[in-house]
């Protein structure tokens, strides 16, 4: 059985990736991205720019039409397609994507039970994951009894329960109200600082990407490729003071302009 405690030093590299769907739509073309261990990266771009496709390629849920997606580090080297990836990745979808027939604990336990990790060890991990997202005491609740924000927390706990090296998040907070989103943004930063996993966060919100990330990758659409990227060295923990600071505003303006350029360029191409 693969060891789930894979540590944080997996890096992923996408080189010259093209993804063309059967319908003829070119989602990504000439897409290059290197993920460094432990960093927080946002993929920022307009809807339909292939952000989600890039995430699915990294997760191995899709294969690139051309180009390579390669892994290195303490993960299982050379094992791109096999089971080696399964313990390395946690995926959070835009919807909470919970099993409505299972309790909160049952949902979080899913990745463990699919790998036949049962008993006390699993229970402990589920409890720990629930604590991390601030939902202890909700083990026996059903998803329908929870608010949208709480469901998303369960979804994040499920992604964390295998202690993955890489956490992929596909616009996880897009459907939530602003108050909840800000709170989850802060909690996500705290979580990331605590566990030091690599996080790839897909969003179409400039403000969210600037607030959360160390690195912001701006993408063009049709076909999706990297337009430019920004680094921010604003110190963590970031809080509402950062949200109202001049640095934050300035960076948001820069990124917004880049996004506007990328969008017009993409549409014109």
């Amino acid at each position, binding site marked *: 059985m693969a060891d789930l405690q894979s540590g944080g030093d997996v890096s992923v590299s996408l080189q010259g990736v093209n993804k063309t769907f059967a319908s003829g739509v070119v989602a990504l073309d000439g897409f290059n991205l290197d993920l460094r261990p432990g960093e927080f990266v946002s993929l920022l771009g307009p809807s339909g720019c292939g952000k989600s496709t890039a995430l699915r390629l990294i997760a191995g849920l899709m294969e690139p039409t051309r180009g390579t997606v390669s892994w290195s580090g303490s993960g299982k080297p050379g094992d791109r397609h096999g089971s080696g990836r399964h313990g390395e990745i946690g995926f959070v979808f835009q919807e909470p994507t919970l099993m*409505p*027939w299972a309790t909160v604990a049952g949902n979080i336990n899913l990745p463990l039970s699919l790998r036949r990790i049962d008993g006390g060890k699993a229970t402990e991990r589920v409890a720990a994951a629930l604590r991390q997202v601030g939902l202890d005491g*909700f083990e026996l609740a059903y998803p329908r009894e929870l608010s949208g924000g709480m469901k998303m927390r369960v979804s994040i706990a499920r992604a964390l329960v295998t202690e993955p090296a890489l956490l992929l998040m596909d616009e996880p907070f897009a459907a939530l109200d602003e108050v909840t989103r800000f709170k989850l943004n802060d909690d996500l930063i705290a979580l990331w600082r605590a566990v030091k996993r690599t996080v790839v966060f897909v969003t179409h919100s400039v403000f969210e990407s600037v607030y959360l990330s160390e690195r912001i990758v701006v993408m063009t659409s049709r076909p999706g490729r990297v337009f430019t990227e920004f680094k921010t060295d604003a110190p963590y923990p970031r809080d509402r003071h950062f949200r109202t600071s001049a640095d934050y505003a300035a960076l948001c303006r820069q990124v917004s302009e880049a996004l506007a350029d990328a969008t017009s360029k993409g549409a014109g191409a």
Partner: protein
Amino acid sequence: MNGEPVEAAMPARNRAEAALRLLLPIVVLALGVLVWDLIVRLREIPPYVLPGPGLVFRTLVADWGLLFDSLLVTLKTTLQGFLLAVAGGVGLAVLFNQSRLIEYSFYPYAVILQVTPIVAIAPLLLVWLPQEAAVLACAWIVAFFPVLANTTLGLNSVDHNLADLFRLYGASRWQVLRRLKLPAALPYILGGLKIAGGLSLIGAVVAEMAASSAGAGSGLAYRIAESGYRLNIPRMFAALVLLSLAGIVIYFALALFSHLLLRRWHESAIARDM
């Protein structure tokens, strides 16, 4: 930000609503029986055309031994046909879901079996099979298709992201079926069962009718046919009442079963405050 889980409350309004739902059909029934009785009395309709409700009830009591035995025969066939339909319908749907080739090969024949009127097949089955087996086969044929169709729909209605998640964690085919597809299909399967319960009774009745024309049988439908030949219309009505009651009980039993299985999680089984 820990919000409280929303507890499904049961305020007085809901209770009044529930009482109304129970009471109104009973009032309608009472009115119907009253009108029926009045028409029979006022127009002096002879009992061999239309017996009054009182006479039907007296016949039901007087012929109870005979009718109850017939009811048991019909119910046994219905239950067996139903269980076989559930096993066959769910089993075939799972098989079809696992293999496209099998689905393409056999699904059309399942449809053909369904669209061919059972009344037309029953006499043939009675020629080929012993009477009891033929009746059972009819109950099965009528009842299995809704289970098959609904289960197929349910198995194909799995949330794509959840399916991706299972793939991401390297779930086996069996795990996907047992942990994802079957639970996701459960509300659909239960919907199929509700239809199949009534249909297996219909299938059993149709086959008993066909068998009775050959003078064989002992079920309720046979009693109805037999009473018709003998112009014992009150007994015919009494048997009919029992048959309807059986159908109602089957429906509510399955509805209750479905509710108990789904009440914690499925929208269809959750009472909402308006």
